[in-house]
């Protein structure tokens, strides 16, 4: 349902600030993002940038080696979830409500994909996110996303 845990043991219970770098680095082996190799790159007040290294095991077909769309959704869901945590704090648990991905073009074979998502608006119950993914040139994106997350601790 959601890319990122609630206030998990490996989040930062001591602080009101959410640190995506610590969050990603301390994610357990079992976390889906660890299996995909998703890593931290950068973040700001309402955005987070993560990376997905190229892996032939993530291909949509073995012959071409072109990356499947599924791992790109996982990357963007994860980046967007982190952006929501950064904006709202680690104590506000949330779940993905919906996520739309437009695939502008296939990513280049062998290239790492970088996903950046921003949480541009929050209401009492809902956080709105948008973002892009690229494979080297941010001006030539491979995907655009838009989605919403629901806070799960609000009646």
């Amino acid at each position, binding site marked *: *349902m*959601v*890319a*990122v*845990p*609630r206030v*998990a*043991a490996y989040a930062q219970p001591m602080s009101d600030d959410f640190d995506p770098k610590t969050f990603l680095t301390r994610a*357990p*082996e*079992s*976390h*889906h*993002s*660890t*299996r*995909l190799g998703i890593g931290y790159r950068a973040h700001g007040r309402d955005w987070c940038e993560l990376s997905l290294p190229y892996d*032939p*095991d*993530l*291909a*949509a*077909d*073995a012959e071409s080696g072109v990356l*499947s*769309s*599924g*791992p790109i*959704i*996982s*990357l963007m*869901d*994860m980046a967007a979830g982190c952006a929501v945590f950064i904006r709202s704090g680690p104590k506000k*648990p949330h*779940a*993905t*409500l*919906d*996520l*739309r*991905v*437009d*695939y502008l073009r*296939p990513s280049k074979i062998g290239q790492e994909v970088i996903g950046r998502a921003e949480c541009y608006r929050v209401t009492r119950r809902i956080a709105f996110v948008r973002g892009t993914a690229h494979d080297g040139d941010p001006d030539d994106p491979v995907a655009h996303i838009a989605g919403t997350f629901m806070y799960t601790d609000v009646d």
Partner: protein
Amino acid sequence: MAELPPYAKLLGVRLDHEHGQPLLVLPHASHLIGRPGFMHGGAIAGLLELAGFAAIRHALGGSDGPRIKPINVTVDYMRGGRLIETRAAARVTRLGRRVANVEAEAWQEDRGKLIATAKLNLMLDRG
């Protein structure tokens, strides 16, 4: 029916059939976990997409048809995915010459309680 792609193997997806239609089965595995106690939304989305691709390939009569490229996908999450087997199937709502519209559903123990759905618009590259 074409073989499943490497990404499906990484997830652990198995291709089955029900009433002659493709049915994807994803047994629980520890690498599918997102927040503690629940499946990762990205893995669920990946499964839905694979179900969509399997349905369109089936509708086109196998692996020798046109190349299928995703244009976009919209995933709606209804329930947290528990750490048990997940199933997914899809329906081709329209099969055009250039574009196909597909709707995919994922559920766990109870087919009546969907955990997520996806709407996929796919481009058919007939060369």
